[in-house]
């Protein structure tokens, strides 16, 4: 009896201890989230300033981030513009044409690997296939470019879009396909006009998530878009981007540069968080409309 009691007590203590530790682990996670967001907000808001949006980085401490913001928008746009059609079509192939075939399964599998592949290596890949050839072709006058940066970001956005499109299309009920096919609709029309429309909000979510992912990406831009202290709208020119300027300014010894870097970090974080919020809203709105 006594041993039973003590065994029971020991098990209860162990249980309470483990559950308390699990709560502590969650609190640790939340604590770091709060700490990082709080510092970004605090340092960012105190450094935010009108000239941030009007002046370019060439002025250094007295300058802003206008060219970096424009550069980021252009590079991100190029990345999404390249990755979206390719990713959506590839996702459609996985879901509609190659579902359960060997090649389809392998590509779905490899896509998941590309999803977490080191972005810096993808940057070096684009350096090799875009920057080096353009340098050779133009005799060295065009080297790094915003376009190359966009291609690098497209490679990072691609697996996100492929995966969401694939998943969303597979969620479309097969009765829809059967109904369309029985009316004699060719498969390409079925895919483009019916299934894509049914899965539209899911695909948009994927594109938004991909945009959120690439807009904070720094590493691959260092040797593709490189950076530029002046405003440029020409995608074949060197181009700066917010993350790259943040990286450069944070490594600068000057305090004033750090403040600008924090302001940039604040802008990037807000942009990314709003995008992920927007993507959730798109998805949840769609769920409601189907109910």
């Amino acid at each position, binding site marked *: 009896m006594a041993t039973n009691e003590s065994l029971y007590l020991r*098990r209860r203590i162990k*249980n309470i201890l*483990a*559950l308390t*530790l*699990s*709560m*502590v*682990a*969650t609190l*640790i*996670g*939340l604590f*770091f*989230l709060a700490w*990082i967001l709080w*510092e*970004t907000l605090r340092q960012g808001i105190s450094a935010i300033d009108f000239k941030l949006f009007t002046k370019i980085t060439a002025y250094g401490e007295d300058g802003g981030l206008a060219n970096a913001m424009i550069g980021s928008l252009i590079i991100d746009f190029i990345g999404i513009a390249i990755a979206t059609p*390719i990713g959506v*079509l*590839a996702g459609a*192939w996985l879901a509609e*044409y*190659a579902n359960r075939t060997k090649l389809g399964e392998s*590509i779905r*599998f490899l*896509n998941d*690997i*590309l999803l*977490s*592949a*080191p*972005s*810096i*290596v993808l940057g*070096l890949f684009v350096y*090799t296939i875009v920057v080096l050839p353009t340098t050779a072709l133009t005799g060295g006058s065009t080297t790094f470019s915003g376009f190359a940066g966009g291609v690098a970001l497209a490679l990072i956005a*691609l*697996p996100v879009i*492929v995966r969401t499109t694939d998943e969303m299309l597979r969620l479309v009920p097969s009765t829809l396909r059967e109904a369309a096919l029985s009316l004699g609709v*060719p498969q*390409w029309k079925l895919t483009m006009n019916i299934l894509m429309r049914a899965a539209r909000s899911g695909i948009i979510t994927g594109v938004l998530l991909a945009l*959120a992912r690439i*807009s*904070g*990406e*720094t*590493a691959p831009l*260092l*040797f593709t878009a490189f950076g530029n202290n002046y405003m440029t709208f020409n995608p074949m020119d060197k181009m700066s981007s917010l*993350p790259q300027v*943040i*990286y450069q300014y*944070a490594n600068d010894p000057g305090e004033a540069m750090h403040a600008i*870097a924090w302001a940039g*970090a604040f802008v*990037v974080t807000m942009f*990314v*968080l709003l995008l*992920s919020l927007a993507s959730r809203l798109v998805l949840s709105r769609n769920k409601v409309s189907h109910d």
Partner: protein
Amino acid sequence: MQAEQSAVAPVIAPPTERALRDARNDRLFGWLLKACALIVLASLLGAAGATLWGGRHAFGTFGWHFLGDATWDPGNDHYGALVPVYGTIATSFIALLIAVPVSFGIALYLSEVAPPWLRTPVGSAIELLAGIPSIIYGMWGLFIFAPFFSDHIKPFLANYLGNKPESGHPTWIAEHTFVGKLFGSDYPFGASVLTAGIVLAIMIIPFISSVMREVFQTVPTRLKESAYALGSSTWEVSWDIVLPYTRSAVIGGIFLGLGRALGETMAVTFVLGNAMQLSASLLDPGASIASTIANQFSEAAGLQKSSLMALAFLLFVVTFIVLLIARLMLRRLALKEGR
């Protein structure tokens, strides 16, 4: 019968042209889609091929010694991969050591312990951590965490566990075990292998915990209820029922986190110190493959550039293998589920 069919045939004839056109379009469309899907394959092969091709001079010059050589000397044009390889492995290992138990705790709390109304908001908050760009982790690490670390955590570790404490008298554990070497350091700043490992751990916690949480929810309720009915406590159900059932996927999730940690660039570059030196101490600065590339590639030329490409190739191959294992492990549970 025969006559009837031949009578019907001409009626079908006009649509055949359209059917042929549709069939041709379908085939073309299928090829277009397949070509897009093959781009995924091409980018993986291309990334491996491009870095291998870029690194051919380094591999050719140094051969297998490249892997085991700790010198990285641009002055004499002599390069070895050991320092960055060690830095990458050490930081990722520390990150896993911290992130795995914490992630398990979070997944356990969110799937078994927390009241249902709390699960969604806390779960989304933890996932928010995964959405923060790595450059923000880097800045926070450089300006906030590294100074905090060098003011509060590092002196404590160095004095009680290190072999070079300020007092000059190392504690027993530091003098007689390897721990002393791990925590002994003369370096005064916060950037170190340990700092980078901690920042990496925070970055990969959301990835590992969300995989764990997801797979914990696939455990059949029947199985858990049976254990509860036999009188198991929540902890016993989690440890003896849930964890064994989901073991392969949990390992997959951990490897997924490892894959992230190995290739992470920005967060590490800021807090690792970028010193091309091999030190046994976790409190000394170091370098990782990704941070070395990020720091040196733009200004490198010739053999140095090739060596950096060779490093990138090594990184890509290792992360590919790690992620491959991760996906295979995750798939095992999915197969079990489908059965």
